[in-house]
């Protein structure tokens, strides 16, 4: 089994290296095909590992080599395939294989085709390191690796100012959060003396609650950055500057869920500090509503899906915070499938529409883009949580969890958000695929994506439909390592009322979205209608003015402060002292050059003076050495050491 572990882990790296060989040369199809094939190999190896675990095999735990061994610190490159990491491996390899094949079609006309695959495969490798590592240090390496690849892929079209800006924003925001994460790791090491998961978690129950609380908080700060939770959320929507397959893979299915994975992985820690868990759940519920509300009015297709991702991450954190770790991981898995599908569908639409992102300029695309229409509709239905698609099983479970745990506020927020989710998803579907063909005035002739692209997407379509049926198998598997709390509403009556109520509510929201946006005469927002001038609309449209506030209250003061530091500290102290030293040499040189009069007589006089000076120094030194005892005596008499 070890062999399969290494194959699963390292074949994306080989693929990345292979594509990187061609990075500087023009488009070579093989640079896309080989990494995709190697990812498929990785997927097959992961499946074998999954089957092994499912059939009751042992957890595969290997120590590849020692990384650091100094004093008491011992960190190996160790990897573990247990029930949790195998789930993550399956999600990562399935989605990334699909996305790789999809990208061969999507990036077909891009001149940096080869570079794209080098980055994308490197990302998958980092993500696998993150989920497979058996210690916090390895997790951190993967964590930083995915951050780096995310930076490289958001800023993939680096000639665009906005793309490089978004890449830097994402990178810097993540660095801020990673500082918190790093402090969390230091706390873990400081207090338990190890970074290995099993040993560290075994040592935690003996620690003081305050220490555990701080550990939990700092680790969660790291998770907040990676999973774009409030207030570090702004980068995710801006990250949509990257190519769409990147958004599907990194900013929907895998990397952003790393925060959830961290909390799930650290469940023995969070079990001990339920108050931090409650905070995580509350923040999650807040973000779910907050992000969904921003998605309601946005006019950028990809940003709407990005806010939806943010909102769903909120759901996952609610589950993780309330101790339902397996539910969080289940929603993570289901969400990865249908959200990646949604993004890839959006990519098809973008291609057909010549990179147009505003759904108000589309409409009526269901005929030319029949398959994309079906896929995106199914993905949206799954996202909305309609029976029997994946979202129903995972999302409604989170609602049930919050109800059973008696957090009624969280429950109602999540229920309301479920309605919003349905509304904005179908607002998007209705605007893109139904109604009048508004794109015609732009002279666009939409065409469906390549057949192999559609075929590549079909596994996700299938999984978005059937993922819910794995629930019990999955539950039995992961509860070997996660707390096995089954969540059942106490009375059958209550369960049916809840389920049917939620379903009706969601269906109503969908119907409302269709009624409002699927007809032929929709109002295109142009700033004149009454609704657009309402305060709440403006607040939502401007994303609660948070990007604006960050720009005003953090970026600008920081820039001004940097200006002050540059002008007053750098120029006047650092530069001045360096220049001062140079100037001393210049001016002494300038003054002493008159010595070089060329007159031999004068030079001889200087020579004599120098000799005399050296001689007298020698004499003084000799005397000082000879009478050192007396000199010390006098000095000590004067009070000098």
């Amino acid at each position: 089994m070890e062999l399969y572990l290494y194959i699963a882990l390292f074949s994306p790296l080989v693929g990345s290296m292979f594509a990187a060989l061609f990075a500087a040369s023009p488009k070579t199809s093989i640079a896309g095909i080989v990494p995709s094939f190697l990812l498929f190999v990785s997927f097959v190896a992961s499946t074998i590992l999954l089957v092994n675990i499912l059939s009751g095999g042992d957890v595969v735990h290997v120590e590849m080599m020692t990384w650091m061994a100094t004093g008491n610190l011992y960190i190996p490159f160790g990897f573990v395939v247990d029930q949790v990491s195998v789930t993550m491996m399956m999600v990562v390899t399935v989605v990334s294989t699909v996305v790789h094949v999809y990208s061969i079609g999507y990036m077909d006309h891009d001149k940096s085709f080869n570079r794209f695959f080098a980055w994308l495969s490197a990302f998958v490798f980092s993500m696998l390191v993150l989920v497979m590592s058996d210690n916090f240090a390895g997790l951190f390496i993967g964590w930083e690796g995915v951050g780096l690849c995310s930076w490289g892929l958001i800023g993939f079209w680096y000639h665009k100012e906005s793309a490089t800006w978004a890449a830097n924003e994402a990178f810097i925001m993540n660095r801020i959060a990673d500082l918190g994460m790093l402090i969390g790791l230091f706390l873990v090491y400081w207090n338990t003396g190890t970074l290995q998961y099993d040993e560290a978690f075994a040592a935690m129950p003996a620690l003081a609650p305050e220490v555990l609380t701080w550990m939990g908080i700092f680790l969660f700060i790291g998770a907040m950055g990676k999973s774009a939770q409030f207030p570090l959320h702004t980068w995710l929507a801006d990250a949509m500057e990257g190519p769409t397959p990147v958004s599907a893979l990194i900013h929907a299915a895998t990397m952003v869920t790393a925060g959830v994975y961290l909390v799930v992985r650290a469940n023995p820690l969070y079990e001990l500090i339920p108050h931090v868990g409650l905070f995580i759940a509350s923040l999650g519920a807040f973000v779910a509503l907050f992000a969904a509300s921003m998605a309601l009015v946005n006019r950028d297709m990809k940003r709407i899906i990005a806010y939806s991702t943010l909102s769903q991450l909120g759901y996952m954190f609610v589950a993780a915070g309330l101790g339902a770790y397996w539910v969080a991981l289940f929603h993570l898995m289901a969400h990865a499938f249908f959200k990646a599908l949604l993004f890839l569908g959006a990519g098809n639409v973008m291609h057909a529409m010549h990179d147009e992102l505003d759904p108000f300029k589309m409409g009526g695309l269901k005929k030319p883009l029949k398959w994309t229409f079906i896929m995106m509709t199914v993905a949206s239905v799954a996202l909305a949580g309609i029976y029997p698609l994946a979202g129903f099983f995972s999302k409604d479970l989170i609602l049930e969890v919050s109800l059973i745990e008696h957090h009624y506020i969280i429950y109602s927020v999540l229920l309301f958000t479920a309605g919003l989710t349905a509304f904005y998803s179908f607002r998007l579907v209705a605007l893109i695929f139904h109604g009048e063909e508004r794109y015609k005035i732009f002279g666009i002739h939409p065409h469906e994506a390549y057949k192999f692209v559609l075929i590549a997407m079909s596994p996700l379509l299938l999984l978005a439909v059937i993922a819910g049926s794995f629930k019990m198998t999955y539950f039995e598997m992961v509860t070997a390592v996660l707390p096995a709390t089954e969540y059942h509403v106490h009375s059958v009556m209550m369960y049916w009322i809840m389920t049917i109520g939620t379903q009706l509510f969601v269906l109503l929201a969908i119907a409302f979205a269709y009624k409002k946006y699927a007809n032929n005469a929709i109002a295109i927002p142009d700033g004149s209608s009454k609704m657009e001038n309402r305060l709440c609309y403006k607040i939502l449209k401007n994303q609660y003015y948070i990007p604006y506030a960050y720009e005003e209250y953090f970026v600008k003061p920081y820039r001004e402060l940097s200006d002050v530091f540059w002008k007053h500290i750098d120029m006047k102290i650092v530069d001045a002292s360096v220049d001062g030293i140079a100037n001393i040499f210049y001016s002494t040189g300038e003054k002493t050059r008159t010595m070089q009069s060329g007159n031999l007589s004068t030079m001889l006089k200087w020579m004599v003076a120098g000799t005399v000076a050296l001689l007298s120094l020698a004499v003084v030194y000799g005397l000082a050495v000879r009478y050192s005892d007396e000199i010390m005596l006098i000095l000590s008499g004067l009070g000098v050491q």
Partner: protein
Amino acid sequence: MMEIGLNHYLVLSTILFSIGLVGVMRRKNLLMLFFATEILLNAVNIAFAAISHFYGDLTGQMFAFFVIAIAASEVAVGLGLLIVWHKRHGNIDLEHMSTMRG
């Protein structure tokens, strides 16, 4: 009559050295400068010989011979250059030899 000891020689050497130094500093004639240098060297030679005798160690006197030999060769080279200079410029005055100004 007082016995002549090491100190006397050293004092003589110092006096000669000082005369030589003053000569080196004050003289403007290149030939006179050579004389002054000779005085400096010989002042040192006296000190070498005297101290060597005082300790009964021949190394100092041997060194004095080396100094004399080197001084002779130095003067030979120096005088040669001096004659060339005189042929070119018609004088050997230090004031006129200032082509290497800084």
